[in-house]
């Protein structure tokens, strides 16, 4: 177990990354006592629109899932509950039940499980506590902090006299995975089949490069259909239109991604996962850079 204190949300994020530099940390606790103004810091501003998408009650189409669809308006309940009973122990939102996990294998479900609030008006303090079954600290933690800020602001809207916020995050397994993709579907996977084929036939290498680059993130939910479409379209072109290097590297990337998907059924982290991830990244970059 490791507890990290920060004077700001950005300091918490920085310390969490440093703590996970040598491997995952079990039972990581992040704590900050800040003024209400910190909820609008430039650091959190940078992640606000992503946090809003994650909090949206209607899942945006470019996310595999989001937290809002699981919270089901819980913040309204929290605000009402605290108004009804200021020292309530039930001012919380629970995103998952055990039945959401049983039999689901590695299907994507939130890591963010619970958030609870308490307001001490006499002390002018809001306490916000969040629990995560897993927490990626490079890409995801800043978004989660921005979400905690948004949720705290929602609760605070009814308490203009409350000036301070005490935030605590518990992460059962905190890990560092640069390039982790926040469950955002790559633009290649959102593109229509016809658009992909059309771009290949017309030699729109800028678009193809953009699409291939969109797959450079480390996906939790690995999708290969878009790359497979691209590969098939490229292979169908007359010889010489696209180099053998592009074809080989696209095929290599797809193969590595499929192996990674299978491997992840039994293990989320470790040297083998890192090696396969590296193979995917290298092949995709080589395919992209081979487009001229």
């Amino acid at each position: 177990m490791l507890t990290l204190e920060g004077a700001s949300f950005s300091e918490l994020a920085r310390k969490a990354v440093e703590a996970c530099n040598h491997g995952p940390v079990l039972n990581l606790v992040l704590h900050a006592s800040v003024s209400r103004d910190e909820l609008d810091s430039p650091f959190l501003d940078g992640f606000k629109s992503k946090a809003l998408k994650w909090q949206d009650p209607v899942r945006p189409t470019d996310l595999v899932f989001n937290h809002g669809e699981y919270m089901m308006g819980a913040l309204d309940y929290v605000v009402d509950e605290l108004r009804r009973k200021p020292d309530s122990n039930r001012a919380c939102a629970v995103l998952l039940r055990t039945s959401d996990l049983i039999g689901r294998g590695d299907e994507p479900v939130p890591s963010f499980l619970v958030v609870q609030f308490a307001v001490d008006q006499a002390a002018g303090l809001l306490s916000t506590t969040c629990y995560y079954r897993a927490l990626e600290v490079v890409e995801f933690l800043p978004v989660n902090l921005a979400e905690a800020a948004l949720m705290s602001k929602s609760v605070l809207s009814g308490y203009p006299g409350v000036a301070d916020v005490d935030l605590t995050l518990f992460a059962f397994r905190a890990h560092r995975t640069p390039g982790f993709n926040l469950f955002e579907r790559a633009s290649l996977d959102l593109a229509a089949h016809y658009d992909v084929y059309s771009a290949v036939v017309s030699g729109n290498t800028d678009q193809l490069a953009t699409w291939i680059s969109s797959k450079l993130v480390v996906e939790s939910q690995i999708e290969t259909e878009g790359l497979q479409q691209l590969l098939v379209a490229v292979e169908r072109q007359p010889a010489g239109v696209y180099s053998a290097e592009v074809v080989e590297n696209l095929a290599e990337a797809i193969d590595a991604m499929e192996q990674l998907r299978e491997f992840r059924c039994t293990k989320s982290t470790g040297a083998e996962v890192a090696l396969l991830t590296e193979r995917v990244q290298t092949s995709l970059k080589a395919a992209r850079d081979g487009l001229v």
Partner: protein
Amino acid sequence: MWILQLSDLHVPSSWRDVGQRELLMGQLVERTLDAGVARHDLAVVVCGDMTHRGDPDGYPRAAEFLTGLMSILIDFAPVLVLCPGNHDIVASDRPFEDYNRFAWKLTEADQFLFSGRQTCSKFVCRDSEFVIANSAYHGDTGFGRIDLRPLRKLLAEPPAVNRILVTHHHLIPCSYDSSNAHNCSVLRNSYEVMDLAAGKEVGVVLHGHLHLRSTMTVGTSAMAIVGAGSGGNSPDLPTFQCNLLHVELGRVQVIRSFYFLLDPAGGRLQEISN
């Protein structure tokens, strides 16, 4: 402090490394060594326009480019200093959000994040301080302006040995191309900025925006104003230009300027004589 000044990277979402990058970077390292730059004495300063025309998908590619550059220069243990430009205004309701995400991932430093609450900031590195002024803070892509109140406050603090002001827009109007609006997109309050900076021991102002290398001195303190050309990543901006400056005892002692034409046939980093 040695400074490798780049600007106007304009990295598009379709960016890919077509091989010259390695050649260019290798030559940059040679020139840096040749100049006598010591370990822990180098700052890489990028004066804005990381992406092209507010394209948020340009940032991962810009991060890839800069990560590659910092990795090539790793023996010098450089620090990275970032400042946004007008092309980094992505959306009117959240102008620098994507830029802030990009800057955070590369530096994990609050000083390089900008919003309505932070339009100027200071980053201290050993005996030097970089005062960064977001000249696009007002959200208008058509011209530059610096928020003078926070700038005054930062410059009122006791200075480090070397005080360097970093911004995006040029300070002196230029009509090199009458077909575009660059002479109108100059920093609108440049007189106040130069007057303030020169009076508060700023030794050098670094900027970009014009895509032209330029060097001028202003005022009785001979404050240098140094502009860098473009980072050459956009297809319509194939020329890479950068400056290598040595700032010591508060003043610019050396400026070396380099130019590289990105050509599929290969290229060489050439020094421009001052």
